[in-house]
């Protein structure tokens, strides 16, 4: 049933070919080809409105495809939506647990709806509660839970029916930084202990960086880069210098053998170095009089900036497309 060879490749758990979604005139997802291996934590990183949630919704059979094809766990999303749904667990962007019910009841309902066999229900609920450390609060109403606890409950719920793949749509949206790191630990634990493939959308670089084995950077419905976070950053060099200099000697710097790339904008110079910080002295001497210098390793935000010319954070909060994407549940 699982891991059918798709074009001769084993262990490919998600595969899309030219998957496209159009909302009227707007192309939310634009011919994306994606291959995700079993057991990976795969990240879709991009600003709000890049098409991440739309892509996820299509893979979860919640939205029909405009064009292209997709297979999840070997099942075609158009032809076998029910088998796809049984193969996946989904954690939505917005809280989707029932506040009036207890944590245990929420899990019990999910077990019933996803056809967990009767004799396994209680045992399985216990297992997932243990996994997210919610056992002692299981019989309290979800209304009394904190944001982080609700997320954990929803993670547990997504795993209840032993899916092969877990879809996490912005799993730490709206949580404070401390809770966010806490949730990351749980996600890593789920991936290890349940051996589940995780597909995660996020617009937090730190999240993609610390969690994901591979990251696809998405903008305007297209994948603009795909690699491990380390390799993505490596392409920019091992370290970078930001300096504020009047009349910098850019040509001199560019000629240095270990300099990958130099950019100058509004009096601020960004220099990407292929090696770590041991050349900083030489660079600064050649650059001119700097009033401010910063040396650091590149982040995924720099990668995004490099690829698109804009920062992830500065992208508009909610575009028309994202509202369309939300329209499917409204």
């Amino acid at each position, binding site marked *: 049933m699982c891991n059918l060879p798709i074009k001769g490749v084993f262990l490919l758990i998600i595969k899309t070919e030219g998957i496209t979604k159009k909302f009227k005139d707007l192309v939310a997802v634009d011919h994306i080809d994606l291959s995700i291996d079993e057991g990976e934590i795969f990240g879709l990183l991009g600003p709000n409105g890049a098409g991440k949630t739309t892509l996820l919704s299509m893979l979860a059979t919640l939205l029909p495809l405009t064009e292209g094809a997709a297979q999840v766990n070997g099942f075609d999303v158009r032809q076998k939506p029910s088998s796809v749904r049984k193969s996946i667990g989904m954690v939505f962007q917005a809280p989707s647990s*029932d506040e009036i019910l207890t944590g245990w009841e929420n899990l019990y309902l999910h077990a019933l*709806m996803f056809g967990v066999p009767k004799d396994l229900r209680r045992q399985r609920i216990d297992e997932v509660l243990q996994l997210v450390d919610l056992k002692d609060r299981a019989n309290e109403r979800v209304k009394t839970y904190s944001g982080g606890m609700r997320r954990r409950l929803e993670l547990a719920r997504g795993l209840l029916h032993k899916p092969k793949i877990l879809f996490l749509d912005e799993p730490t949206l709206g949580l404070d930084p401390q809770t966010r790191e806490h949730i990351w630990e749980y996600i890593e634990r789920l991936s290890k202990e349940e051996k589940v493939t995780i597909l995660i959308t996020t617009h937090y670089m730190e999240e993609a960086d610390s969690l994901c084995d591979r990251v696809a950077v998405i903008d305007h419905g297209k994948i603009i880069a795909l690699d491990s976070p380390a390799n993505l950053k490596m392409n920019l060099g091992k370290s970078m210098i930001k300096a504020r200099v009047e009349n910098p000697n850019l040509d001199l710097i560019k000629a240095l053998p270990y300099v990958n790339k130099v950019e100058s904008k509004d009096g601020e110079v960004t220099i990407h170095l292929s090696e770590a910080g041991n050349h900083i002295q030489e660079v600064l001497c050649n650059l001119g009089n700097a009033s401010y210098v910063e040396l650091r390793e590149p982040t995924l935000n720099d990668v995004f900036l490099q690829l698109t010319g804009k920062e992830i954070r500065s992208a508009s909060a909610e575009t028309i497309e994202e509202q369309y994407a939300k329209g499917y*549940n409204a």
Partner: protein
Amino acid sequence: MSELSGFYALWYREVKVFLRERSRIISSLVTPLIWLVAFGGGLGSIVGGGGSQAFYGVSYQAFIFPGVLMLTVLFTSIFFGLYIVWDKKVDFFKEVLVAPLSRLTLFSGKMMGGCTDSLLQAAILLILGVFFGISYTITSLPITIFFVLCMAAGTVSLGLAIGSQMTSFEGFGLVQSFVVLPLYFLSGALFPLTNLPGWLMTVTRLNPLTYIVDGMRGALLGIYQFSPWLDAGIALGFMAVFIAIGTFAFMKMSS
């Protein structure tokens, strides 16, 4: 099998939520009691003192009791159905939509949940009925419950059909003004259908709830304007038509 346990899950959720929100149960009983005590008592003191022939020898309060029972079921059921808009807003329903269940199962689970809620409300009101001059027999109670069930299934389905196509609460007022209140006031719930002006006569006879009230009033008080078989037939037809419309609306609802 999974459809069956899914159906059970949806029903279980509705009943749990209903029983847990006691304030909702209590507040929804206040409206019918105000109708019976204030309206029935106040207007009844003028139009129908004990044994007035206008109300077939029963008190006005007793006369409108079946109508108020219908009102309770109508309000509970329609707004239960419309409540699906809220489910969609808080994303709880997304979790249901992503489950490997057919739309028919989703609809029937929701619908039966709503019917159970309405039936429980009606049961409380029926118990209170003894204070308003209603007495029950072995046949009157099951017949009344039959009409309550048809009414509940039909109006829950109507509410779900409207709610599944709505995206915000803005439509609630419209439903209240153009569906709920006309259905109630133009049904003979509050007045006998004899001696009505011609246009009102026509309108009440076109309203299926007229026959449901008539069936309940016939069972509880022995006052029939139509044949009991006609009442029962229209009640069943009303239920069937709206279940079909509701199922269709669920199939069409975008996930």
